[in-house]
């Protein structure tokens, strides 16, 4: 059946086919509110219609996994009756429009996803991609995004302990702001969103509802355009103070037995939270919208259901617990309103001013959500370049100085000094190292956290790039001595309706899946952000991986700084001088070309296990993974961090620049006092390891290069970002 005559002008982003499905589900024409509800539930953001088919291929299970994808965040067992709960989420588009508020509300949103499950957030991370430093908007965006992330996290009192910042012209019109939160809960106190049971009170808590973030396209419809001399902004403003109260109030209520189900109101607010709770609990929900706490006057049901006002939660309580809950929320000066109850009809029934304003069966609203297997074309493979195919620098020492002073490799201190990275008193590994280390409060254990992605590899070869993102985050967690347990991921891509973009997504997911499988790091949560394009120019495909691991004795975690004169310096892993798609090639030799470095998952795992074992055995004094910029940049970072030089005198057949700057995977630089013992251990483990020099002195000396003073390196490394941010074009 198809009621073409009644088809509205504005399908709110739904396709004709999707609209026909709605007619079938309802057996009638949807009203405006109902159409709005279908439109947001079936949006790419909520339904994952383009990516679902491929996400299902990811490995999501393991003995450590308590809850994989499908809830607000993933949950893993970290021993001692505790669970780590974490997820990453994007706020790309809002951050481009209003960088401070966009980034701030992104951080607020991801923290809610974590504490809605019963966890106290203990660490925030963020993965950021900006346009070219020369682009007129970049400085303003960097400034606002960093301030916004700090503004929200600092006020919440959750330390922001790490992340990544990169620049590329591909993000000029579409920056990426991905925020990750890790929390800790008792394994027997984890909260889910399934609203099981009928006749139970549905309770709204937190901030009042305003017209924030209601989609601009639908705002244009005549009904809402009366006071139109001022275009209503769709920007949401974050209120971290309210969220801090919400966090404390929720945790206090969670300590009782009152809550049956709880769900944060994020994207599509009241709509997706109520539908999700009903669907998971296989019940219906009746809401009386008159009872929704409102910040603005004359709000319509449509506006209330689609509002994305922040700092709100929806709960289903045990009957009779409402007043106890109210007392807690009163203490924290927050609104609490009973706005409905669960019903046995499996319908979403909305009442307003004594009328039914929406009546939608929940199962088809969720299950009939479109799912597309979009056509895709694989990215054509690129030629493999040999070590001699990329031009050598005139002066290797000079090239290194330039690289450590470049936008992508320079110190991020300017960024993380704006984040309170120490509050909560458990930040053992501060920002700047391979992975952040956050002690599990009151224990000697720590969680290690890293976020990683190398988009220039992904664009060259999505499968290898997807694998590499997982491998690198796994390696970073390993480098601090922790055992990686699981990952979360944020798939940032362009328009999936373009087969070549869809091909990037498919390839990256395949690569990620293979790596997660091989490295025993299942995917427990994630987020997908598509249509990151401006004027048909897509961003670089950016599948960000956030890896969480654990170290049982944090006193064993080595730093990434040279510490003792005379220590032997080794490279773990084989060096083939892979310069294709390297930073050196991009910044010093005319732009990226060729295939990216291949990832050998067996080697990755073997080398990582060897390094971790040696760390636990106390054999290693410093450890740093080798990534962007190769051995030379890794050594420079260790020298700067330790204020100690090293004499590197490695003989091999490679051109000096390929050896120094090649980005072969699965490698670590380690230093140790007892070279003989470590060498023997590597031999026993069947791991390739080469001695390349000795720690000491005030300069870093590389093969075929003049010595570079550590002070000079530090100066170069620390200069670029603050100088860039302090300058401005007039």
């Amino acid at each position, binding site marked *: 059946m198809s009621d073409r005559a009644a088809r509205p002008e504005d399908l709110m982003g739904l396709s004709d086919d999707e609209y026909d499905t709605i007619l079938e589900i309802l057996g009638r024409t949807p009203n405006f509110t109902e159409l709005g509800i279908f439109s947001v539930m079936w949006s790419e953001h909520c339904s994952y219609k383009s990516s679902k088919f491929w996400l299902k291929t990811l490995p999501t299970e393991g003995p450590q996994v308590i809850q994989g994808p499908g809830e607000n965040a993933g949950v893993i067992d970290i021993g001692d009756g505790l669970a780590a709960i974490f997820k990453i989420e994007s706020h790309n588009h809002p951050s481009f*429009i*209003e960088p*401070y*508020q966009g980034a701030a509300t992104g951080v607020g949103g991801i923290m809610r996803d974590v504490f809605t499950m019963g966890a106290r957030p203990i660490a925030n991370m963020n993965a950021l991609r900006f346009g070219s430093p020369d682009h007129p908007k970049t400085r303003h965006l960097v400034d606002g995004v960093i301030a916004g992330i700090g503004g929200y996290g600092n006020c919440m009192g959750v330390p922001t302990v790490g992340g990544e910042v990169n620049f590329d012209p591909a993000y000029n019109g579409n920056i990426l702001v991905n925020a990750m939160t890790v929390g800790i809960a008792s394994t027997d106190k984890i909260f889910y969103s399934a609203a099981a049971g009928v006749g139970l009170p549905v309770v709204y808590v937190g*901030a009042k509802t*305003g*017209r*924030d973030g209601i989609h601009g396209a639908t705002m244009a419809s005549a009904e809402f355009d009366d*006071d139109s001399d*001022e275009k*209503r*902004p769709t*920007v*949401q*403003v*974050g*209120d971290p*103070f*309210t969220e801090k109260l919400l966090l404390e109030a929720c945790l206090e209520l969670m300590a009782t037995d009152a809550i049956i189900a709880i769900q944060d109101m994020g994207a599509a607010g009241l709509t997706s939270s109520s539908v999700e709770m009903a669907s998971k609990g296989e019940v219906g929900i009746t809401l009386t919208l008159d009872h929704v706490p409102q*910040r*603005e006057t004359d709000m319509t049901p449509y506006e209330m259901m689609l509002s994305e*006002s*922040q700092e709100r939660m929806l709960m289903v309580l045990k009957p009779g617990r409402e007043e106890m809950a109210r007392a807690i929320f009163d203490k924290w*000066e927050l609104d609490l309103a009973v706005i409905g109850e669960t019903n046995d009809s499996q319908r979403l029934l909305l009442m307003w001013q004594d009328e039914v304003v929406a009546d939608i069966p929940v199962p088809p609203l969720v299950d009939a959500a479109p799912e597309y297997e979009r056509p895709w074309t694989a990215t054509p493979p690129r030629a493999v370049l040999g070590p001699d195919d990329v031009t050598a620098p005139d002066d290797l020492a000079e090239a290194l100085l330039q690289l450590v002073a470049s936008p992508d490799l320079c110190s991020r201190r300017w960024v993380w000094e704006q984040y309170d990275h120490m509050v909560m008193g458990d930040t053992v590994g501060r920002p700047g190292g391979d992975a952040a280390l956050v002690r599990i409060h009151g224990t000697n254990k720590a969680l290690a956290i890293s976020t990683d992605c190398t988009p220039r590899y992904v664009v060259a070869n999505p499968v290898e790039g997807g694998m590499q993102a997982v491998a690198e985050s796994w390696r970073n967690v390993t480098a601090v001595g922790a055992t990686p347990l699981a990952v979360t991921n944020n798939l940032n891509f362009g328009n999936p309706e373009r087969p070549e973009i869809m091909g990037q997504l498919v390839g990256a997911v395949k690569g990620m899946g293979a790596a997660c499988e091989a490295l025993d790091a299942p995917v427990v949560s994630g987020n997908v952000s598509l249509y990151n394009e401006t004027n048909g120019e897509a961003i670089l495909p950016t599948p960000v991986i956030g890896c969480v691991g654990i170290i049982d004795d944090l006193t064993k975690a080595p730093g990434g700084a040279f510490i003792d004169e005379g220590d032997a310096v080794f490279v773990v892993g084989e060096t083939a001088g892979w310069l294709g798609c390297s930073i050196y090639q991009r910044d010093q030799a005319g732009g990226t070309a060729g295939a990216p470095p291949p990832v050998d998952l067996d080697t990755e795992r073997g080398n990582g296990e060897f390094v971790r074992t040696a760390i636990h055995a106390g054999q290693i004094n410093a450890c740093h993974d080798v990534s962007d910029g190769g051995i030379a940049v890794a050594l420079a970072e260790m020298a700067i961090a330790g204020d100690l030089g090293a004499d590197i005198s490695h003989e091999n057949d490679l051109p000096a620049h390929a050896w120094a700057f090649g980005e072969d995977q699965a490698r670590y630089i380690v230093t140790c006092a007892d070279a003989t013992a470590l060498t023997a251990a590597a031999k026993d483990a069947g791991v390739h390891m080469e001695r390349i020099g000795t720690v000491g002195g005030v300069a870093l000396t590389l093969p075929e290069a003049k010595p570079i003073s550590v002070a000079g390196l530090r100066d170069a490394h620390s200069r670029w970002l603050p100088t860039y941010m302090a300058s401005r074009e007039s």
Partner: protein
Amino acid sequence: MKARVHITLKNGVLDPQGKAIHNSLEGLGFDGVEGVRQGKFIELELADGDAEAAKARVAEMCEKLLANTVIENYTVEIET
């Protein structure tokens, strides 16, 4: 010459500060307050000159720096 600039949040934009001030005033026993919005007030000391031109120039400063026009409105008055 002086310019007085008022920067206020657009209608409908959440004002967390105003909300907190409102609560705090109630806590202090001030009733009868129905709403609080907090904005900025910026005074610029300008070299003497044409008032109309100065106003346009300050408006430009608002657009470029003083106001966040995505969420804020501004007004400029010149006092001579």
